[in-house]
């Protein structure tokens, strides 16, 4: 197994954070992982993306240019990467921010109004984790049981309320029937 995952959106949407969470998930599951952010001025409002690789084998390039999975959280990212997804791959789309639909018939597309759900459920700023919950359910590469352990690695122990909110967001996405 070698999954090339790309999470892309605007700076400030928690792209890097959800990527880090995912990498920890893989690590806890005994896989080889790598996490590589875009860096530079993007982090202050431009586009941000993050390459995550989860693999049974030693990882070569940490750069994901042909993803198996794309998590798209804004339209420019959707436009830029939708054609790059490997055949048989998946795309997860925040449909409250991206109106377009995938026109490819060789990939699996999932839509979730993550940003809208986040504001409805008082989980503002956690659209990233809601969409990640949906990804976890449909990708099948990460055991749901490990989620709490991974969350403990990325959320400071000093902020238990954040832990609960993030878990709630992931579960919301995991259980979402779209």
């Amino acid at each position, binding site marked *: 197994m070698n999954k090339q995952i790309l999470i892309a959106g605007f700076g400030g949407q928690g792209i890097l954070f959800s990527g880090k969470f995912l990498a920890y998930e893989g690590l806890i599951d005994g896989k080889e992982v790598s*996490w590589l952010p875009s860096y530079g001025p993007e982090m202050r409002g431009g586009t941000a993306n993050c390459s995550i690789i989860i693999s049974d084998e030693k990882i070569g390039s940490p750069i994901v240019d042909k993803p198996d999975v794309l998590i798209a959280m804004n339209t420019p990212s959707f436009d830029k990467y939708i054609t790059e997804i490997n055949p048989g791959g998946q795309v997860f789309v925040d449909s409250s921010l991206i109106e377009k639909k995938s026109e490819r018939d060789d990939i699996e597309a999932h839509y979730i109004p993550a940003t809208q759900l986040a504001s409805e459920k008082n989980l503002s700023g956690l659209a990233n984790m809601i969409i990640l919950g949906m990804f976890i359910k449909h990708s099948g590469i990460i055991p749901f049981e490990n989620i709490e352990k991974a969350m403990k690695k990325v959320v400071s122990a000093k902020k238990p309320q954040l832990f609960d909110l993030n878990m709630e967001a992931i579960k919301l996405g995991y259980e979402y029937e779209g």
Partner: protein
Amino acid sequence: MSEKVLMKGNEALAEAAIMAGCKHYFGYPITPQTEVAAYMSKRLPKIEGGVFLQAESEIAAINMVIGVSSTGKRVMTSSSSPGIALKSEGLSYLAGCDLPALIVNVQRGGPGLGGIQPSQSDYFHATRGAGHGDFHMIVLAPSSVQEMVNLTFKGFDLGDKYRMPTMILADGTMGQMMEPVSLDLGEVTKYDKPWALTGTNGERKPNIVNSLFLKPEELEQFNFDRYKRYAEIEKNEVMYEEYKMEDAEYCIVAFGVAARVSQNAIDEARKNGIKVGMIRPITLWPFPKEVLNKAADKVKAFISVELSMGQMIEDVELSIRCKKPVLLCNRTGGMIPTTKNVLDSINEAVNYGGAK
């Protein structure tokens, strides 16, 4: 063995430095290495005797490094390409004074202010022209976060062992990426430093740390002696890794992130029956000349994969004495060769001179 943790390359490197006994850090902010300074500013004040100081310039930082090193303690600085250029004066003085220190260059594109994306275009600077005068630094090129850790630890040791500056030549990718790392690094070897400035206490003759020798015969002798030490290093400290070289007919030479991309390309090419392997230099100085020269007797061609206009390729050509063709696969200015770029070069090598 301790549990592996996910760490950013820059932070893992900083932690490894602390584990190597480095309690003094001097630096100046510059992307993409600033996490090293930020990490040190958090950790060092909590350690007894630990000093973090943000200097007024890279020039001041490297001179503060010289000050601490002259007292015999482990010390480091880090920067990225334009900042490293400013440190060149100090690098030459470190070498001329026979002082150890660890210098980290998390490279970005150049020349000039250039860009902030990953690059390997300071290869010449690190291996050829780190400053004025006859000297070398030991240059270590990590290609994973684990190696950022291991080579930092090793770099301090080599510096003390041979009394000379050691450079970690990383790139923006190595600095920014996260991978699981083990921080089981073993014991720190302690070296006697009778030359260190510790105060005479009225009990010995003064120690002098100096690089000035106005008599040319004297300076020549110092340089000869230093190069004898360099010869020892070339004999004993070369590090490299081979990947699928057993039956290789084509040999990629790449370091850092270029080696990671090349690994993907090699796996792909082998699916198509092309026997390609890789020699990955871990020490860029001393360069693994002999292993490349031996490989030249077996393979049909070499491909140097680099994030520059082609700098290491000169060392590859020199090492194999131009016995075989050497192709260049490169991107520059902050661009990273893609797997496809490398595959294209492999195919070019296969078709070179009408072979196959």
